[in-house]
Structure formats: structure tokens, C-alpha cells
């Protein structure tokens, strides 16, 4: 242990104390009129700004939300039991902000930017305000690069572009978080050398957990660590036991951190899990601040609450570095009711939605995406050419299949064309199935979807489609690696390549045991 000499201490103290008789300290103060339920009302502070940070005693901070004629309404980011009526509070003269920086990656933090993973302090030198105005039209450019989720059903049917806002919506236990986590895990590829060669920029991820169980978040962290995804991921956590004001600012903190990466020319993915609980937290503080309730008791500005958050997702123009912030908000519906207030709001704000259904989930179609009503309004421009080619056919085949599905029980009574369409559709549904935590690179997706849409898989029994996929892709990886590389590099599926896939598949089919 290093020894500390007494004279050194004296020197330090003298140095510090020399600035002791400084000039007068000037600050604005107010007093607490009322405190409780995570909010406080203050008297005084006549010059305070909206959303300014306020310092309370015992290191508790608050943010001004209401400016009224005779008092100031304030939300508290700490323990409200440490504050008493009559306490003196101080202005900080800065709006609520959080530290941002590279060092946040791999860490679990609270919405104020403080680490909560017990791995010591985070060294950052920049502060950014939580609420920032979204960029205007001039600073943006259209979404045109794909953000691969690694899920065939999404990358094929509802593609997501970098800078897009795609809603993931569904009942509880339908795999909403799983879709988001798979997407995060799939970004590992973008940080590899190979991606650099293929011209794919790395994607940094931010997972914002709002009002979830602490144990769920711990599971997410463990899984991401296990998959090696924490290196490029930051987790912002406001659990169900955190005060509602913290849950309220959590997504804004995520957007702020995301904007830091975006503004330095990088691509970011931010997952807001989930915004229904965020709206509930905002409703709580709003009602406590006595703002008038509206539909479902949400305050009048609950639409603006989410629109200003999601509007911060963007693809920057090349002049500004060309970074992007992709937002994946999640909404939990109650018994499939998408016509409730918050779901309709967020559906209308986002550039499309991925709809997850419990009955699909229970019948074994996982991810349980209802491809009929899931849409992506801008992502199509972002698909790679090869995928576009196979996906067009896929969409059509599946639509026809859904139309005829009701007649499937008549079996052999149907005419040949109908039977064939039913057969094709059921194989395609099978191809779109995928296990959790095994995202698939886009070149393999293209090959599988090509085989599905070209009718090659029709000869297989349904329960052999997935084993075929597994073994076929393994074989391709070991024996035809160049094929995968060409598709990944050129991003196109030429007729030559298609023919080659056909031949390889035919050869493989001879060795594949069709019946289990």
C-alpha cells in the first residue's frame, strides 16, 4: 500500500483551503411545499426553466415538469422519503442530461447514466440533454441500407432499414423481446472483419428496459454476454421497482445515448422494451401532477410523448456523417386489442409493425409473426437485391396460401393447382420458422427462401423441411463456401447463381433421408 505522508496531506488541505475565502456564492432557491409519490411541489424558484434539473437535499435530483402560477411541479429521480416539507432546493441551471460516451458499451446503467452493474464508474467526458429536438428534413436522407435481424420472416417479408422505426407489437408471451434480442445478437456479424470487407457498417445496440422485472433484465444481460453481444451493446434499465419518473425518462436516455453514436457517423439500434409501460409511468406522474386525464386516463400529450421520442430515429445525410438511429419500439397489447389507445398511437407513428400472435406461437410457428398484417413502409428500399428477388415471390405465394388455407381440410377433393399451392404455402411457412438465438446470415436466408419459392422443397414432407435446412446449410458452409461469399459480397442473385443453388440442392437431396 502506498504511504501517505502527513505533510502531503497538509499541503493538499492548504491548497484546497486557500480557495476558501472566495467571493460570494450565488444560487437560486425554493422550498418544498409538498412531496410524495415521486413528485414534489415547490414554492419560489421564479426563474426556473421547464425540464431543468433541480437539486434536493440528500443528493436527490428532480426535473421540472409543471410551471404554475404559484408553484412548480417536479418529478424526483431518487427516494422521495429523504425529502421533507420545507426543505430548501436549488436550481442547477441546466436541463436534465446524462453522460454519454464509448465507455457505456458493455455496461448496464440507469436512465441518469449511472452504472448499476457493480463494475465501477464509467469514464465519460460529455453530457447530452435527455430531451433533444429531432432533426429536420435537411439533415436527413432516405433509409436505404438494411438492418439485418437474422430472422428469415422479418428480413424477407418486413425488412427493416437503418434509420427506420419498426414497431414490434403483440400480446404477452409471444416473443416480442426475443425478436429484439435476436436482432441485437445478429449485429455481432457487422462488427467482424468479413462485414467490413462486404461493406457493412457495424451497428451498436442500446436496449432500454422500462418497467420490467429485474430478473428479466438480468437474464437478458446474461444471454447477451453469453452470445458475445455485450461488447457493442449498452443496457439502460428502469425496472418496475424504480420510481415512475425514472421509467418515464428511460427511453429518452436511450435515444440520447443513441444520438451520440449516430452523430459520430455510426449506426445504432435502440430497442425500447416496452412503451406501454412507459406510457403508464407517464400517466402516473401526469395524474400526480394533476394534469387533466383524457382517454384511458392518459394525459393529452401522450401521443407527443411517443412521437417526439420516435422522431429521433433518423438516417443522417452524408454531410453529417451518414450515421443512423434505428428504433425498435415494443408494445404489449391486452388480448390482441390493437385498437387500444397506445397501440394505435404508436402504430401510426412508426414506419411499420411486426405483429406477433399467440395462436401462431402456440401452434409452433415461431417467430409468431403474422406476415399478413405485418408491414414495413420503408424497409423495402433497404433490402439487398438478392433478397428482393426471392421475397417478392414469397409474399405472393404466402398470400395465396392464406386465401386457400381454409380449404386445406378438403385435401384430395381439390384440383391439382390448388393442392400445389397449399403444398407450397405450408413448406414456406415451415421455412420461415426459426429457433431463438440462432440468427441466420442474409446469404443463407436467400438460399433457403430461393429453394422454398422455387418449389424445390415441395417434395419434402413438412416435418423434414427444418432438418433439411439445417443439414443443407451445414453442407453448403463446408463444401460451397464460395457460393455464400459471392452472395454476401455481390448482394445479388444472378441466374447463374440460382442455377448453381439448384444443382447443389439436387445433389444433396440424393443423400438426404427424406423420411425420418
Amino acid at each position: 500500500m502506498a504511504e501517505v505522508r502527513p505533510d502531503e496531506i497538509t499541503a493538499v488541505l492548504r491548497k484546497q483551503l486557500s480557495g476558501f475565502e472566495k467571493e460570494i456564492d450565488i444560487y437560486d432557491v425554493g422550498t418544498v411545499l409538498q412531496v410524495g409519490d415521486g413528485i414534489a411541489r415547490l414554492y419560489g424558484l421564479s426563474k426556473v426553466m421547464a425540464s431543468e434539473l433541480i437539486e434536493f437535499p440528500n443528493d436527490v435530483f428532480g426535473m421540472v415538469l409543471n410551471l404554475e402560477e404559484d408553484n412548480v411541479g417536479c418529478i424526483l429521480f431518487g427516494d422521495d422519503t429523504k425529502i421533507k416539507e420545507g426543505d430548501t432546493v436549488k436550481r442547477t441551471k441546466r436541463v436534465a442530461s446524462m453522460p454519454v460516451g464509448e465507455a457505456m458499451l458493455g455496461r448496464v446503467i440507469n436512465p441518469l447514466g449511472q452504472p448499476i452493474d457493480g463494475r465501477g464508474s464509467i469514464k465519460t467526458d460529455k453530457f447530452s440533454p435527455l430531451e433533444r429536438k429531432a432533426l429536420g428534413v435537411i439533415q436527413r436522407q432516405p433509409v436505404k441500407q438494411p438492418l439485418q435481424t437474422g430472422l428469415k420472416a422479418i428480413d424477407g417479408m418486413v425488412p427493416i432499414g437503418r434509420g427506420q422505426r419498426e414497431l414490434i407489437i403483440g400480446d404477452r408471451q409471444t416473443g416480442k423481446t426475443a425478436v429484439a434480442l435476436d436482432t441485437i445478437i445478429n449485429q455481432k456479424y457487422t462488427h467482424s472483419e468479413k462485414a467490413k470487407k462486404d461493406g457493412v457498417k457495424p451497428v451498436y445496440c442500446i436496449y432500454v428496459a422500462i418497467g420490467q422485472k429485474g430478473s428479466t433484465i438480468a437474464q437478458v444481460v446474461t444471454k447477451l454476454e453469453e452470445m458475445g453481444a455485450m461488447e457493442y451493446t449498452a443496457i439502460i434499465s428502469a425496472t418496475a421497482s424504480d420510481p415512475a419518473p425514472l421509467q418515464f425518462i428511460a427511453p429518452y436516455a436511450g435515444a440520447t445515448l443513441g444520438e451520440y453514436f449516430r452523430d459520430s457517423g455510426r449506426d445504432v439500434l435502440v430497442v425500447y422494451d416496452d412503451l406501454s409501460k412507459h406510457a403508464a409511468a407517464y400517466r402516473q406522474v401526469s395524474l400526480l401532477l394533476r394534469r387533466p386525464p383524457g382517454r384511458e386516463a392518459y394525459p393529452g400529450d401522450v401521443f407527443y410523448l411517443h412521437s417526439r421520442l420516435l422522431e429521433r430515429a433518423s438516417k443522417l445525410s452524408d454531410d453529417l456523417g451518414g450515421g443512423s438511429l434505428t428504433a425498435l419500439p415494443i408494445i404489449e397489447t391486452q388480448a390482441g386489442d390493437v385498437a387500444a389507445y397506445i397501440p394505435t398511437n404508436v402504430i401510426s407513428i412508426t414506419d411499420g409493425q411486426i405483429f406477433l400472435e399467440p395462436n401462431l406461437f402456440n401452434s409452433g410457428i415461431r417467430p409468431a409473426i403474422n406476415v399478413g398484417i405485418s408491414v414495413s413502409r420503408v424497409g423495402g428500399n433497404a433490402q439487398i437485391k438478392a433478397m428482393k428477388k426471392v421475397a417478392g415471390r414469397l409474399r405472393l405465394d404466402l398470400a395465396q396460401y392464406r386465401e386457400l388455407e381454409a380449404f386445406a381440410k378438403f385435401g384430395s377433393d381439390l384440383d391439382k393447382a390448388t393442392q400445389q399451392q397449399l403444398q407450397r404455402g405450408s413448406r414456406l411457412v415451415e421455412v420461415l420458422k426459426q429457433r431463438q438465438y440462432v440468427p441466420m446470415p442474409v446469404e443463407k436466408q436467400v438460399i433457403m427462401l430461393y429453394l422454398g419459392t422455387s418449389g424445390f422443397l415441395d417434395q419434402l414432407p413438412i416435418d423434414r423441411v427444418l432438418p433439411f435446412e439445417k443439414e443443407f446449410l451445414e453442407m453448403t458452409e463446408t463444401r460451397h463456401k464460395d457460393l455464400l461469399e459471392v452472395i454476401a459480397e455481390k448482394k445479388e442473385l444472378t441466374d447463374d447463381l440460382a442455377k448453381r443453388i439448384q444443382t447443389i440442392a439436387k445433389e444433396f437431396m440424393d443423400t438426404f433421408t427424406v423420411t425420418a
Partner: protein
Amino acid sequence: MSNLRVAKRYASALMALTGEAKKPEIIADDLLTVQSAIKSSKDLRSLLASPVVSKQKKKAIIAEIFGTKIGSVVNQYLIAIIDKGREDVLAEALGQYFVLRDEQLGIVSVDVRTAVKFSAEQEKSLVRQLESYTQKKVRVSFSLDKILKGGFVAKVGDTTLDGSIRRQLDLLRSRLKDGSVSKN
């Protein structure tokens, strides 16, 4: 809390009346008389707050107490406020009135707390300094506060000018706790 708003309305109405009057000081003096009467008499306060006593009776009592001591404007004001059933906010309205009047006359009241009693010389110099800081006339009330250890704390509206040893010690403590004390 909503009382404060009502009080502000009644105070600003009174302020407007004062502005129209030929001799505003007289009105202010009359109001000061009323205010000090309310402050000093608990009975008067409970009378004003009581909903049981009829308006007629209240008016008669008020007229008997102040009648000749105050001018007609203030008398009418008191009657009007009783008619409206707002006599319970009278004390607050008067308080707000003096705040508004100070604002109009460019006077700020400053609370100064000191650790040791200031000499007349020191007080004068402090008042001079405060006047140059606020660019207004200053009405200072001094009080003693041993907790400060040394120096003074002046409160001008919501702004605090803190030159106390206590504050310096608090700052030092937080700096030592944060570990930002460094050798260089």
C-alpha cells in the same frame, strides 16, 4: 394554494385603485393599519375566517374598528371583499399588495442572516453593495444565525447570496467526498 391566486387578484385590483388615487401613500398607510390590526389581533383573524358571523355583522364590526381611522377607498374595499365572501383571504391579499407595491416602487426586501452582529458601519456598507447589485432600493432586515459560523447569507427574492463559512465547509466536504481533491 388556490387562495394565493385569489389573493393576487384582489391585491392587483387594489394596486390599480392605488394607482388612480391622488395620494397613493395614504392608501398604503391605511392598508398598513389594517394589516397590523389583523396581525396583532387573533380575535379579528378568527372573525374574518368565521363563516358563522353574518356579512352584515362583519361589516358593522369592521366599520366600528376602522371607521374613521382609514380613508373611504380602503373602507369600500373592505366592504366589497366582505360582500364577495372573500374576507378570509384579506390578510394574504394585503401581503401580496405590499409585494406588488414594492415591485412598483423598485424596492426589494432582503433578509440577511449573519453569524455575528454587524456593526452599523458594516450594515451600511452591505446595504450599499446590495443596492448596486440589485440596481434597486433595498429594505434590509438583519437576523442572527449562529449556524453560519461566519460571514453572511443574503436572500434577495429567490436568489441567495451566500458568503458564509458554513457554505464553504459544505462545498469542501462534498469535494472531499467526490474525491476531486487533487495534488495539482
